[in-house]
């Protein structure tokens, strides 16, 4: 195509753009242009970081230790689970409730619960592992399921069973997908470890360091911690990306696979009803079982009945309900608004990438940067620049939602057959005409997929902003209850935000099915 910058020129544009942006940052910092000097010059941040490096070291190693342990455990569980789902498809349906919960759970909502129920490191490792599980599991499962069916037939034709097919064909086929899952999982592990440091009273860890520095008016310290957290996230991403490149000889996946937990195959109505019921009840059973197994006091560790008791039966029920409803009424609208804004941004970005790949290549590193930059590190910085109003919530929500959505939309654009463009081009259509006639309509169904993937992230972004910045909504309620040791409320907020997230996800899925001309399936 015309107008595309080839390899070296694209890199040059990227390099020049990066240098320009860093220069702009430096100048803005030196001249105190942004919000009265809350954006320090990059040189000041780096100098301070180097000067205080001895202070950073124990925090850095603490986070690295828990994040990497969680990364390993989460990935082992994820690959094992994917293998199980692949070998026994009914188990995937049974675990559907668990999988969607793990995918949609706002980690910040369960961090206090984990901190209550588990001791220091274990809570951090668990949260890191939880966040690692879903991206790797879906990537591994999709990888295993996309194994060449003819080769699987061949294995069966020589009398090999499903285990043999898994071992000889599926695992190795899934390897590139698993490694691309690791690319998403690595920053997620860092985020999980840091989030579980919040409110844990832990002395060491970047999250504790961040919280401890939040009260002081030292933007350069906050930026330093943010950069450090970004650096270790990026390190994990790069290691996984290099491994993936080494295995496949190319580097492709940037985000979650588009195909999600697929609909159950046709079966009897009674049977499928029983399956849905089982999938719904299973997470609650696991929750109950874990509490029993932990042997914790029922005052601290609430079971499903404990939460029902707190919210509906106990003497505090009325006030608890009132507080929750107020929080929900603040959180839900901004989450939806944030998601729409994020989608819009992603759509514009994918249009840019379609019209001018050269500009896109220059933007992409910065987009990636916002993804590897842990959310929690971003928030205090955003507060410094945007204040504590609705703007900061929106900015944070857009920054956590747009990237996954963008990757989905860009994939959607990429999947449009080239012949479709050739056809209209041969009638003399301009780039814009091609966009309008083919790309935009073809993108329609992908918008819904992107929305479904972006919703849980939007809720997470809003809750973090509420906790750290705006003092409203579910995030704030969680933070307050933690301060008052109101265990019933901590559990209730966790459960309500998970239910909210799952409900929004299911609504998005429904919308996708009703409006998005059919589900997007893999084939």
């Amino acid at each position, binding site marked *: 195509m015309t107008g595309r910058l080839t390899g070296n020129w694209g890199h040059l544009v990227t390099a020049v753009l990066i240098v320009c942006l860093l220069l702009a940052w430096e100048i803005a910092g030196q001249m105190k242009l942004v919000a009265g000097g809350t954006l320090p010059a990059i040189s000041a941040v780096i100098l301070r970081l180097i000067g205080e490096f001895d202070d950073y070291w124990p925090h850095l190693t603490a986070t690295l230790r828990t994040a990497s342990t969680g990364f390993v455990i989460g990935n082992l569980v994820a690959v094992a689970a994917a293998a199980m789902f692949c070998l026994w498809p009914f188990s995937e349906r049974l675990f559907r409730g668990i999988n969607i919960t793990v995918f949609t759970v706002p980690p910040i909502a369960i961090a206090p619960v984990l901190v209550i129920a588990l001791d220091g490191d274990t809570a951090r490792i668990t949260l890191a592992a939880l966040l690692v599980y879903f991206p790797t599991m879906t990537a591994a499962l999709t990888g295993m399921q996309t194994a060449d069916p003819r080769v699987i037939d061949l294995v069966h034709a020589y009398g*090999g069973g499903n285990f*043999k097919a898994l071992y000889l*064909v599926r695992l190795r086929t899934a390897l590139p997908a698993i490694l691309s899952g690791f690319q998403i999982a690595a920053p997620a592990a860092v985020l999980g470890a840091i989030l579980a440091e919040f409110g844990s009273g832990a002395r060491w860890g970047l999250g504790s360091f961040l919280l401890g520095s939040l009260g002081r008016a030292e933007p350069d310290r906050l930026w330093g911690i943010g950069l450090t957290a970004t650096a270790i996230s990026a390190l994990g991403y790069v290691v996984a990306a290099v491994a993936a490149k080494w295995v496949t000889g190319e580097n492709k996946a940037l985000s979650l696979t588009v195909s999600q937990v697929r609909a159950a195959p046709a079966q009897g109505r009674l049977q499928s009803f029983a399956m849905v019921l089982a999938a719904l009840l299973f997470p609650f059973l696991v929750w109950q079982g874990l509490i029993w197994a932990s042997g914790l006091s029922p005052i601290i560790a609430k079971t499903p009945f404990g939460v029902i008791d707190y919210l509906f039966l106990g003497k505090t029920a009325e006030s608890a309900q009132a507080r929750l409803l107020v929080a929900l009424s603040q959180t839900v609208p901004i989450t939806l608004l944030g998601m729409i804004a994020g989608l819009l941004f992603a759509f514009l970005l994918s249009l840019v990438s379609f019209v001018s790949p050269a500009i896109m290549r220059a933007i992409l590193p910065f987009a990636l940067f916002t993804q590897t930059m842990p959310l929690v590190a971003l928030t205090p910085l955003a507060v410094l620049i945007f204040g504590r109003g609705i703007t900061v919530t929106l900015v944070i929500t857009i920054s956590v939602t747009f990237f996954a959505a963008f990757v989905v939309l860009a994939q959607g654009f990429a999947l449009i057959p080239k012949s479709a463009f050739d056809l209209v081009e041969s009638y003399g259509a301009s780039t814009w005409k091609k966009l309008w006639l083919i790309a935009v309509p073809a993108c329609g169904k992908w918008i819904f997929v992107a929305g479904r993937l972006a919703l849980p992230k939007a809720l997470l972004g809003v809750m973090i902003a509420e906790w750290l910045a705006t003092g409203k909504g579910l995030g704030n309620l969680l933070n307050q209850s933690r301060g008052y040791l109101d265990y019933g409320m901590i559990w209730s907020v966790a459960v309500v935000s998970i239910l909210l997230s799952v409900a929004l996800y299911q609504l998005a899925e429904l919308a996708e099915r009703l409006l998005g001309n059919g589900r997007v399936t893999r084939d």
Partner: protein
Amino acid sequence: MQGLPLSFTDVAKTFTIKGEALRVIDGLTLNCPAGSFTAILGPSGCGKSTLLRLALALETEDGGSVKIGGEDPVIARRSGSVGVAFQDAALLPWRSVRDNVRLPFEVLGTAPDDDQIADLIELVGLKGFETAKPGELSGGMRQRVAIARSLVTDPRVLLMDEPFGALDLILRRQMNLELQRIWSAKRPTTLLITHGVDEAVYLADRVIVLSSRPARVVADIKIPFDRPRGPELLREAEFHGLCDEIGAYLETGREAA
């Protein structure tokens, strides 16, 4: 090793697609004696491949029975007496040519016969490419790896589903010659599913023409030519007469649907 007889007796198979029952095979009987070469022709989607998948126990019949050497195909395939080649090569991209040919042994859990592997790679004309990956080979070369793989366990029953369908005419002819040579040496009972009338007539002892869904036998034609059959056979009038006759049956089969 002697071939094993392969028999389909009153076989029926129905698929359910989007809640609708689709009868693909209905009461089909076909006996392939030990050491015979049978080619199956029929319109697209008539259930030819399903027949082959039934013999591989990749599908289960709804009625009737499929037997290899008088036993269930599951037993036959586990004992390593079945070889298979599909329309596409179905190679593992991360394995070399040699390791791909070795795959059946690994699935069966038996010791690989390295001499046999080397011989077959040479036989299909891939000597020197043993360590190449499938990605480095042309389509025709990949297909020859699959042929070598289908023969590596010295199968007593060889099942082939359009193994040369993706090849160009010249390569196809060449592969037909090679297949005939290999088959004559080892004499496995062979079932070849194909779209090519000339290929069927050239290779088989017997050509079966199936009708559209549900598949039933429209014609069962004995091929009288002596073996070994050279490429000059392709230019003989008798050969073309037979091809035209079978072509006519194929059209009837389509009309019958």
